[in-house]
């Protein structure tokens, strides 16, 4: 009898040790798996596609995007990504990268901006916008985020973005802050960055556009934000809306100084 108790104790001890060991090992394995994936990131394919699209004469006006002003002057791509969203004089509002690209496609190439904005992600011209965004982001890889906050509209966008970030709603009474408002949170094996402050280089706002391995899709920032809204069981703002730009301004300004790693690869 005595011996049986002893052997049970050994078994229990064995299980608890095993579990601790397995947990650590799983996290390490995931890290290893991610490092392996990062070498040969299919985002490269979208990047190459985006670069070709930028230079190609397309659309009703048979023009390229090489005169597109992303904020640093016509045709300046390098460094533009880490200063977006920003206020644009010609449209009189704050635009993020994707809205700006659609704007350029409309004014320079003659595409119908409203029609592109209605197109679901991954289809038709919207897939091209994502590829262009991937290339533009890649051109600023390693640069530090430094969103301008000089214009009143940019300051307003930050405040609006902050309120949207903390706004609770939907069937689960979730806000962005429910998951991204504290340090050290995670969903299953996904670490959740605290986006109310600078989460560090290449994390959060500095990591998108990214290639999603699980569904083989290239995801832009707007699609990423929409997915957060989807998980909140909340209707997501329309493509190119001021709400999404404002949210991006909030995240981008908070990430000031963080080095961009986009395009990255995600689970």
């Amino acid at each position: 009898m005595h011996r049986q108790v002893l052997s049970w104790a050994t078994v229990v001890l064995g299980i608890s040790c095993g579990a601790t060991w397995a947990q650590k090992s799983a996290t390490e394995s995931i890290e290893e798996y991610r490092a392996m994936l990062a070498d040969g990131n299919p985002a490269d394919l979208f990047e190459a596609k985006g670069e070709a699209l930028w230079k190609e004469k397309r659309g009703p006006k048979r023009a390229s995007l090489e005169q597109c002003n992303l904020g640093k002057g016509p045709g300046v791509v390098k460094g533009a990504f880490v200063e977006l969203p920003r206020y644009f004089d010609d449209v009189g509002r704050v635009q993020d990268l994707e809205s700006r690209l659609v704007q350029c496609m409309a004014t320079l190439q003659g595409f119908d901006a409203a029609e592109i904005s209605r197109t679901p992600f991954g289809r038709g011209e919207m897939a091209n916008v994502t590829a262009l965004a991937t290339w533009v982001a890649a051109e600023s890889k390693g640069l530090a985020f430094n969103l301008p906050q000089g214009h009143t509209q940019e300051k307003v966008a930050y405040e609006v973005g902050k309120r949207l970030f903390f706004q609770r709603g939907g069937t689960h009474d979730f806000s962005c802050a429910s998951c991204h408002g504290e340090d050290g949170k995670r969903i299953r094996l996904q670490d959740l960055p605290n986006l109310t402050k600078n989460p560090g280089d290449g994390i959060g706002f500095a990591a998108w556009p990214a290639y999603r391995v699980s569904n083989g899709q290239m995801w832009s920032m707007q699609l990423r934000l929409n997915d957060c809204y989807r998980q909140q069981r909340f209707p997501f703002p329309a493509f190119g809306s001021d709400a999404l730009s404002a949210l991006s301004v909030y995240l981008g300004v908070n990430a000031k100084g963080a080095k961009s790693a986009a395009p990255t690869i995600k689970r």
Partner: protein
Amino acid sequence: MADPMRIRAQMSGANATVRVLMSHEMETGQRKDASGKVIPAWHITEVTATLNGKPVLSAEWGPAVSKNPFLQFNVKGAKAGDKVAVTWKDNKGDTRTDEATVS
């Protein structure tokens, strides 16, 4: 016309490490679309690689390979400046060849 591949070939010791990223849907033929119809299989069936025109790898692929596949292999006895060419063929008869120089 299929999108280009990305091929990197780098010397490591006496071997060249070749890393290839292919752009392909790799549809398995097992999935159904929103209206319940089966999406026809569309995937790479054959991959070949050559070093200066001499075959060094041939592989038969099926629907189990992921979308936008990544392939890495080592080539013995390669030198810097050698040309590595990779070709894939899919079940619709489409094909694509791209080349890179070993560095």
